């Protein structure tokens, strides 16, 4: 069985990749996918530690996260579609109407 820090390291790499994606990429859909990546990095850690500690709470939490992520994807994609319809673009840098 693989030691748990392998999973933690993989999860950290995935989380960092997701974070960088959110911060760097301009395409809203890619940003969205990066957010999913971060969520799943968290899920991986949950599962890994659930298994490591032989506790079920982590696995249950993963289900919650997946549920919320599914709902979020639905709302988020709907928003992106709506933005695209008005702006003809999904570049997040062009969506700055709330600038103070």
């Amino acid at each position, binding site marked *: 069985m693989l030691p748990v820090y392998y999973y933690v390291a993989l999860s950290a790499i995935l989380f960092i990749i997701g*974070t960088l994606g*959110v*911060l*760097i990429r*301009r395409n809203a859909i890619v*940003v969205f996918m990066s957010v999913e990546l971060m969520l799943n990095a968290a899920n991986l850690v949950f599962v890994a530690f659930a298994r490591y500690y032989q506790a079920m709470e982590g696995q249950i939490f993963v289900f919650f996260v997946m549920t919320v992520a599914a709902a979020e994807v639905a709302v988020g994609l709907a928003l992106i579609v709506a933005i695209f319809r008005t702006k003809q673009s999904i570049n*997040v*840098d062009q*969506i*700055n*109407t*709330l*600038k*103070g």
Partner: protein
Amino acid sequence: MFLSEVASVGGYFYLVPLVVFFPVAGLLINLIFGGKFSEKLIGWVACVAPGLSFVLAVLLGISLVGHPEGVTVPFVDWIKLGELELPWAFRVDTLSVTMMLVVSGVGTLIHIYAVGYMHEDVRHNGDPSRYRRFFVFFNLFIAMMMILVSADNYLMLFVGWEGVGLCSYLLIGFWYDKGKDGIGNAVAGKKAFITNRIGDFGFLIAAFLMFWYFKSFNFDVIVAKAPEVAAAAPGVILAMTLFMLLGVTGKSAQLPLFVWLPDAMAGPTPVSALIHAATMVTAGVYLVARSYSLYVLVPQAQNWVAIVGGVTALFAATIAVGQFDIKKVLAYSTISQLGFMVAAVGMGAFVAGMFHLVTHAFFKALLFLSAGSVIQGLERGHHAVEHDPLLRKRLKSEHHFDPQDMRNMGGLRNRMKTTFWVYLIGALALAGIFPLAGFWSKDEILAEALHLNPLVYWLLTIAAFFTAFYMGRQIIMVFFGEPKSEPSAQAQESPAVMTTPLVVLAGLSLVGGFMNLPFIHTFTHWLEHTIHLEEVEAAAEATPSYVVGGLNLIVAGISLGLALIAIAIAYYFYTRRAADLQKVPANKRPDDPLRGVLGPAFSVLEHKYWVDEIYWAVIVNPYVAISRFLAEKVDWAFWHDFFHEKIIVGGYNGLVWLLSKPIDTSFIDGIANGLGQGVQELAAAMRKIQSGFVRNYALSVFIGVVVIIGYLVLQLR
């Protein structure tokens, strides 16, 4: 004493408030309804009022025979302030009733005379509507004088004291639009009032001292407590009496405050007779007699009073010699005679002073009224001359005929027989010729003075000599010789309404002295019930042989002899010498034979020792200068222009500027504006964070998370 007790004493004492009430009623009737009355009715109302007061005074006098110690009749509560309880109460004793009798008796006669006199006077001066006003003032005067003499405390006396002063002022200025420059009479009234005010200041200080040390204004309380207070604080009694003396010099026209009385002759002649000769001016004498219990305790004050009186008597008598105005002579004579009275009460001869007060009221009222009769006789003569084309040509100057100048008179004894005889009686009584009233009273003063105060005796004796001289001079100038002007040759006798009171007063002047004859001393015994003096009785016991029944024969002989000599000298100068002077060319002839003999000294007398001018130079002008300085420099220039305009207004403006500019605009507005601006600037800074770029927000969140986690991680370690 309560009213019920007064009633139980018997007599008519409880009627005493009516002596004030009647004149007040008279004046109110004339004041309210007089506009519709005829002159005759006004005159009747005005004469009946003091007449009824006189009847009451007589009733009170009769009641006093049974109760000579007198009573106090309470009337109303007047002042209640802390420990001061002052009822308005009437003091009925022999002293006050004597004054009431004189005031109402002589007053009534003068009212009757005034009915005739004012009838002509208002027409002569051209305003008949003032007839009523005159009698309203006259009745008010009687009422005030009654309050003065019937008071049972010094404060009530002061009410009367001020009231008569007011009437005096109103009546001196009765023809306020006449006189020198059209304001002369008003100025004279003002002078009298202001001069009296100086005296009143003294009276008030004395009254305050009394209240402070006696805790009362009441005469009886002060009489009772006086020895006790004198033992504890002798200086207080001295101060009190000397301040009171200042009041006396004001009201009774003594040195140095006598200057108002000659000017007071600007009033109609009945005013001069009643107020400025017979009654009001004697208030000072009455006051000293009332306060005898204080004066006998301080011989020093007595001495001062006596000397003031004596010097005034002589001083005024000499001035009277040099006067040409018939009323001015009598005015200075009044000052002189008041000096006699003040000297008498000052040296402790209270009865003699009061005696002279009474007789003087008779003959001086008589003299003034007769002088009024002479003046109007001349005015009638002048009127007759002016309306007669033949005689008119003989008038020296048409406009400047002075009916009061004795140089315009002469020979009137044939034209005005009644006036002449009564005038002669008055003059002889004043000169102190036996057996007229003035002889007895003046002799009594002189006899007392001889053993009480020899210096004053000599002053008064010389004054008596001058008195006889100026009266002789006046009688001869007015009634003897040839008429010196056409109006005087045409003068007409006054109507009966004027001469009847004159005859009555002449009768009183003839027999008035018999009130206090030697051996009998009715008046002395009458007043003894009020003025208790042990020492005078003691002195009377040790009498030398030439004193017979209280009459000092030597003193009487000297004064009578001097009076006769003075009259003889006057006769020589004004008949013989005046006749000699007729030979001198008219332009070199002196207007008075005495001027030829005395030369410049006569001018000094004629100008009254320049006392008025000295007062102007020493008091009035500096006072006016100070007033002017205070008004123009201190008040206007300093207070108004500098202090108010510059300092207060400038300071206010400065303060307003300070409040508005640095404090309000800069500081308070600065806070408010700065607050707003700060918020704006802060917002401007903050809005830059709100870039609108999602990735920026995400970065912020990320950094925040890193920081928090970093912190937690470090914390956990």
